[in-house]
Structure formats: structure tokens, C-alpha cells
């Protein structure tokens, strides 16, 4: 079953003459284990696509289904609950709540969902340990490096039973090594059975995905075929 399905999703901002079509007629489906990259230049509507996919914004028309639940007609509270239980977000630069330690940041979505603080922290500690951050659990966001912050954000986005990871330029402000580390983690999460959508303008980041879709002016225009295995690449090469 697809974790996320979007059918003919269109989003229009503004009215009348100042109307802007942010995304139009988007069809998209993400299954468990999928890492999908949405690639496009800035202003192409890729961030809007992501906020609609995560129920933060309502589409003007079209349908979004997360975990088999149709979003349209859902109350704000129900959407919030869906986000708590199914969707994890990773943003470009601001991900962690100041004033909470790495551990508390990760345990927050669980607590918001009613898990007792102690229990939530055990789970959060486990998630952080898995990402090699067990020594940074008690640090506040401003004591962590940019790469560490993004890793904590990924831990938070995947903690508990969440299984749809939505990332908006997750390594945008990082150097290429840290960016690669972040994408490795996203990929590892997908290998464990999560579904992920990463929107980016960066081809190197996008190339970590199993499938790359290209977005231009709010439309999905193209996508890559399932790539051949790396071995074939090595065999084909000769002296350039």
C-alpha cells in the first residue's frame, strides 16, 4: 500500500489577477521503502508540494491520501494527529525547538501524541543512539553543529511509528560531506521500510534517491527510470 498518494493536486495562491498556480495536477505515489526526490529550481513549487503532502496546507483541488486516509474533509485536529503519528518533517535550517535538548526534541512528537515522558525519552534515546548521537542527547540545539542538528531532526522525524519522511532541502546549508551523511540516513531509513520524499534543487542530493521526479512551474515533467546497478556502470566505462 502506498504511504502517500497525491491525485491531481493543484494549489492556487491569491485571487484574480494576482493568482499564482503553485502546483498543478500533481500525481505522486510513495510506497514503503521508496526514496523519492523531487528536483526543481527555486520557485518551481516543490516546497508547496511537500507542505501539501504533509497536510500543512490544503490543496485547492485534488486529493491527498496519507496512510490510506483521505485528507480532504479532515478536521485540523485530525490532521495534527496524522502528522504526529505518520509524518516526519525535516526542514532546511530550522528544525529543533530551542530550549529543548536533542533528546527532548526527539521525544516531543511522542509526548504530543500522549506517550508518557519517560517512555518517550527511552524511545528517543534509542533513535538517537542509532544515528550515532548518543553523546549529544543532553545538548541544546545551539550547542550542536549544523550536521548534528539535521541528524537529530531525522531522528525526530522517524521516531516512534512514523513512516513517511518529508524533507525540504535537508542538507541545504551544510557542506557536501554533512549533506551526504544526512542523505545516507534518509536512505537507511528507507531501507528499513519508511517512505521518504526529499525536495531539492541539488542534483547530488537527488541522486541518492531511487527515483527522481522533475518539477517545472508546478508540474511534474519527467522522472528517471529505475537506475541500472553500479556494476554496469563500471563495466561500460573505458578510457574517456
Amino acid at each position, binding site marked *: 500500500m502506498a504511504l502517500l498518494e497525491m491525485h491531481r493536486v493543484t494549489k492556487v495562491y491569491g485571487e484574480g489577477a494576482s493568482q499564482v498556480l503553485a502546483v498543478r495536477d500533481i500525481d505522486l505515489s510513495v510506497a514503503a521503502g521508496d526514496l523519492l526526490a523531487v528536483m526543481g529550481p527555486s520557485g518551481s513549487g516543490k516546497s508547496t508540494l511537500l507542505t501539501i503532502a504533509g497536510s*500543512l496546507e490544503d490543496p485547492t483541488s485534488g486529493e491527498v491520501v496519507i496512510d490510506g486516509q483521505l485528507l480532504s474533509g479532515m478536521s485540523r485536529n485530525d490532521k495534527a*494527529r496524522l502528522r504526529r503519528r505518520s509524518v516526519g518533517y525535516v526542514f532546511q535550517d530550522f528544525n529543533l525547538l530551542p530550549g*529543548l535538548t536533542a533528546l527532548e526534541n526527539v521525544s*516531543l512528537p511522542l509526548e*504530543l501524541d500522549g506517550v508518557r515522558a519517560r517512555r518517550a525519552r527511552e524511545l528517543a534515546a534509542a533513535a538517537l543512539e542509532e544515528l550515532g548521537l548518543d553523546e549529544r542527547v543532553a545538548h541544546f540545539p545551539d550547542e550542536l553543529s549544523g550536521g548534528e542538528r539535521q541528524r537529530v531532526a531525522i531522528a525526530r522525524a522517524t521516531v*516512534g511509528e512514523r513512516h513517511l519522511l518529508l524533507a525540504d532541502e535537508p542538507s541545504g546549508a551544510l557542506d557536501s560531506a554533512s549533506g551526504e551523511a544526512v542523505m545516507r540516513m534518509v536512505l537507511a531509513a528507507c531501507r528499513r521500510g519508511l517512505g521518504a520524499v526529499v525536495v531539492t534543487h541539488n542534483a547530488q542530493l537527488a541522486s541518492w534517491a531511487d527515483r527522481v521526479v522533475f518539477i517545472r512551474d508546478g508540474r511534474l515533467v519527467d522522472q528517471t527510470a529505475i537506475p541500472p546497478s553500479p556494476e554496469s556502470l563500471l563495466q561500460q566505462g573505458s578510457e574517456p
Partner: protein
Amino acid sequence: MTLALERVAPVHRSDTGGAPARRAIVRWTWRLFKREWPQQLLVLCLVTVAVAATIVGAAVATNTPLPANEGFGTAQDIATFSLPSRSFPSELATLRHRFGRAEVIEQAPLVLPGSVQTFQLRAESPHGTFSQPLLSLLSGAYPRRQDEVAVTAGVASAFRLRIGDRWRVGGQTRRVVGTVANPENLLDEFALVLPGAIAEPTHATVLFDAPRVSAASIGPTVRSVTHQAPPNVVNPESISLAGVTLGMLLIALVAVGGFAVLAQRRLRSIGMLESLGATDRHLRLTLRANGVIVGVAGAVLGVLSGFAAWSAYRPSLEQSSHHVIGELQLPVAVVVVSMGLAVLTTFLASGHPARQMTRRSVVAALSGRPAPPPRVHRTVVPGVVLLVGAFLLLTVSGGMIGGGMPELVLGLAALIAAMILLGPFFLSGVAELGRRAPVAVRLALRDLDRYRARSGPALAAVALGVLIAVVICVAASARYGNVLDYTGPNLASDQMIVYASSHASGAVMVKRGGPEQRGNSAKTAKAPPLAVVRKSVLGIAAALGTRDVVELLQVPVTLQRAAPGRNFTGPLYVATPSLLRAFGIKASQFSPSADILSMRPGLAGISGMHLLPSGPGPLHGPGPGGLAHPVIETVSALPSGTSAPNTVITEHAVHELQLSPTVSGWLVQAPATLSASQVASARQAAAALGLSIETKDDAPSGGQVISYATLFGIALALAVLAMTVGLLRSETAGDLRTLAATGAGSRTRRALTATTAGALALLGALLGTIGGYAGAVAWFSASTLNGGVSALANVPLRSLLFILVAMPLFAAAVGWLVAGRQPPVIAHQPME
């Protein structure tokens, strides 16, 4: 991870996250408060100061007057007897029979030879059930034998006594064993002996409890403690509470802006929370919890600092109010209510920003993009409706005999609400006006308009402070400007009037009386011959170090105005040559035909005045012994006190009306301000002769009231500005950075801040003044009793100038000075 997945079984989870979610949100809010409390320092300080001031104010106000049961100890009733009396033993026996326990305190005067000062020799049990609170031991011991005596500090110094001395008192030599005091009245000076140790007591006080029996039915000289202080709505507690409520209203206005800025600062965090699945209720909780945290912190800090201030001030209050005040003798109700109000205020103030916050799009919040400033209160209608309503209510209230308190309060509330609603429109007006100003001014004014959500409450708060000041100033100048019903301090602080009859001064006497005077007044004292009294008064004056005594004569006539409204009040003494001489007035200074001389400015210009014979009978205009349209002349050299001879009848008029003056009292002019102990001993001396005295009471002068009110209003407005201008400017810190990048230097920064502060101050002053005058016009126009609108002719010009010109200039100047240095908040705006 997989393991974790299995362990989070969706069992006990509610749709909204339940208590764990709320706890998590509150924990986050608390963390942020701990980290960023300086950002909320202003609101925190305001709440703290308000609570502390309320506690100290209420404690001082409730503890300053003598306690209602002063002199009663723990008894409910007191009976006084003159001794020796043959009926006393039987009456005492009756009391004991009817009411059980009755404790007797016997007293005799104790005269210091060569001094007018009198003291009491008192026989009282230090361990009596009722009388115990009337005694405290300062050093040594209580007398245990007939020949032992304890004295108060005053007696000890007057008689040069020390513990261990032998002292002949009450017809017997006694040994001084201790120093004592009456905690309920530190001015009470006496020598204490064992009950029954006074050979010839002159009177006795009996303390007893007569529950559910009216004092009068027991006997003519019996008083009950409950009859001392009739329950009154206007008591120190209620005044303090009204003050703190008003203060909290102002704080709420400031806090709304503060919390809105806070919400703005936390915008991205809020967006982040929402993306994590926090419900709207959770999001609002972040700000609401913050409100409560600030309120609780402010309340606790306020109570602590209030208590500290009270502890520090208590000893000097005991000194000045002459009775012992317990450390914990705080008005608990006021403390509790003001704490509650503090929390309620900040909680309610966080409500509006909290609701605003959840209306914002989460995408905009996440990007940290401030939402376009919301256009608040687009319609003038509610404000105008409220203004009209306020006008009507105030008119109705003014027209009522006795004021119409509910209408007055409702009217003022409506007026304030109207100003809060109308304030923003002034802001857009001023932005229009500033369109052609230099860039910094234009930018500052436009920001005031754009960020109305913040500047609106600030403006309303400034205006409210000014409104209060203006209303007080206008009302005070109207009231104090009333030359007929003359108001002000009764006497100068170095003046004292000794009245021939103890009834003449009425309440003044009873208010300040100690227990022994009550005993005296209970006696039906026969007036001693005038010559004797005159000599005694000279003696009292001599004790104060002066021979400057003016005899005050009165004639049975009153000054009346035959028109509705307030009428002439105050004494009308005869302008005897000695009185005129005492104030340096020569006969040449007024015409020989003048009937009345007065220092009250404007009294001479009042028409329809009559001199009417006083005494029983209807007042139907001038009859025999009366005089229509007396000639009134203004003589400014007369004293201004309301009890002093500020208005006098000339001997010419006295002759014409064929009146015979009687001596009513003596005005004593002391060389310096009278001290409390001088007043107390003069009072005791006067009381011993069946006389009473009056000295300066606490009533402020009109000028004082106006100055205080003006200062209060300006201080309040400036405080609000100090708090809000910072908030407003930090809101637009981004603009400032851009400005700095385009080469604007500290001058621009200074001009921005100065304009913001000055414009807000000026607008607030204008709005408050207009509102205050509108309210006053409405009230006075309907109140003929208070002289109608014409009563407002006396404009407190100086105060208005201060408020409308000096205050905005000052605000702008401070803004200019303070904004010179680049504030760190602009240098690196906190993002995470």
C-alpha cells in the same frame, strides 16, 4: 527501531495527546521562559511592582489608623464611670452578673509639676483576659506588689525615672520595676500599678463582653467595638483592590503587545510544533502557559518584594501611626486577590495573541516570515458607540443626587474601552500626517500604523494613564476651585485651634482621642470660667513655645447662597482687631462698609449671597438679624485653612446686625511644625480642661492633588512608553538592519526611536486629555450641584501643558538619547 515501533502500542493515547502533551508544551514554555525571561522583563516588572505596591499600600492603609478596637483589648464593650461614685460598685456587680467577666481599669491624672503635660496613673492587670493586648513589657517586669510601678518611656523621661528608682506617685512611694507601652496606642503615656493600687481614682473603664446586646441598652456610657467602625464599602482594602484592578488593566494592555511580539519571535518554533502535530489548542497553550508563568512569577516576586518593603517600612510606620503593628498584619485578602489578579491579567492578555497565532498559516510561520500586520478594528463604529454610551452614562451619573456610583463606574469603563478601540485610528491619522516628513520620521510613523496590533494597546495604555490624570486634575480643580464649598487642608502644619467646647470640632476630636479622653468626654464637664480657660490656653501655647494666640469669636449668623448647588461651608469668625493684626491686615486694606472679608478667591464675585441668622427656624431669605447681598471683599492675607479664619465677618456687620460675639476658640501659631508628641500632650492638656484641639489633618491641598495626579499620569505614560517603544522597535529590527546597510547611522536610529516615543506620547496625551475632558464635561454638565460645566472653567493649565507638551518632548528626548548605541538585539537577532 523496529523494536521501538512495536513498543509504542497505541493504547492509552487520546486524540489530542492528553496530559503528556500538555506537560511537554508547558515544559517547553517554561524552558523558554527561563532562557529568555529578560525579553519579558517589562511585563514581569510591571506585575511585580503592581503586586508589591498593592501589598505595601494596603498594609500601610489598613494599619495606619488606630485599630477599630483600640482601647478595647479583646473585649467587645467598654463602660466608663466617673469616680468616686457611689453607684459604681453596684453597677459593676450588675455587669459581672449579666455578662460574667468584667475587668476594671482605674485611672487618675498624673501631673508633672510646672508643665501642662498630663499623664495617667493606671491600675490595670497585665494578665487580664481582655486588657492583655493593651499592655506590653519593654524591659524589667510588671508590678507585682502594691508599691511597685512600671512606666512608659514618655513618663520615664518626663519624671527622669529609671528601673530601680523610688518614685512618689499616687500618694505612695513606689519602686520602678519596668518600662511598658500600650501597643494599641504608643502615644498613651502612663504609669502602671496593680489593680486597686490607686487610692483615689478619678474614673474607671470596665471591659466586658455583651454579645447580642446593644451598648445603649446597657447604659449611657457603654460603647461597643462594632459601633466604632461602621462597615464601609470605601475602605483601604477596597481602594487598594480598585487600584490594583486598574493597574492590572493597564498591564494587560501592555502585556498584549508584549506577548504578541513574543509570539512573533517564536513564530518558527510555533510552526515547527504545528508540523510535529501539535493541535491548535497546544499552540495556544504555549502562549497561555507563558502568560500564567509570567503572572505567577510576577505575583510571587511581587509578594516577596512587597513583604520585604513592608518589613523595612513597618518600624517607621509604627513610629508615625503610634501603635504597634505586627509583621504579619497584612491584609490577606488583598494579597491573595492581587496575586490572583496578576495571574488572571497575564493569562487573559495572552489570549488574544494566542488566538492570532493559530490563525497564521503554518507555512508562513515556518519560514519565519511575519504575517502582514493584521488590519485591526477597521470600523470606528464600536468605539463611537461606546463613547456615546460613556457620555450618556456619565451624564446620567452626574445628574443624580449622590452621584449614581454604578453609572459612574460603567461610564468610565465605557470611556476607557472606547479609547482602546479608537486609538488605532489616531495611528493611521498620524501616519498620513507624516507622509512628507524625513525618512526616519516617516518610517517610524508608518510602523506605528502598520504594527497597530502592538502600538494600539500601547497608545491606549498611555491614553488611559493620561485620562486618569486629567480626570483627577479637572475634578480636583473644579472641586478645589469651588469657593463656597471650600476644600483643602484644614490648617497649616504649625497651627492649632483650641476649641472652647469639645463638641465644636466634632469628629476631629473623636478620631484622635485616646482612651482617657473618652473617659473625659463621658463626664459631663461643666465649663470652667473663661478667664481660667484663656489662661490654660496660653499655657498650652507656652508649652509649644509660642505666645502667638488669637482669640476666635463667632456670631450666630451664617453665610448662605440662595441658589441650588453647593453652599458656603466653613467657619465664619469675627474680624476682631486682634485677629486682623495677627495676620498683618490694616483697616485701610478694606473699605469700612465691607461686611465679609475672605481670602477665598472669587467669593466676592458670587451673587445671591445672604447673611442669615443661624439657629432653629426656616430659612426663607433675610429676615430680622439677616442681611442680603453683604459686601464681600477679598483679603488674601487671611489664612487659607478650611478651619482657619479664611472668611471673617467685619465688626461693622456685627454692629449692623446687632449680634453679640461669643468666644469659640483660640488659634495658636506655633514657631514650627507641631510634632506628634506636642499634639498629643496638648490634646491631653486640653482634654483635662474640657477643651479640644484641631491640628493639620491629612487632607491634601488642591495643588498637591493636581501635581500628584499629573505626576502619576506622566510616570505611568512614560513607563508604558519605555516598555512598548522597545518592543515596537525590536519588531522592526529587520528594517533597521536594512537601513543600516544602506548607510543610515545612529542619527536615523535615534530619530526613529525618538519619533516613535514622541508620537505615541503625544497621541496618548491628546487622546487621554480629550477623553478625560469629554467625560468631565458630560458629568459636570448634568451636575448642577457641582456647578455645571462652568465649574470646569478653572482649567489646570500647568498640568495640561506638562502632559501635552513636556511629556511627549521628554519621551522623544529619552528615545533620542537611548537609541544611540546599537542594541544587541538588533546586532544579532535571536533566531534559534
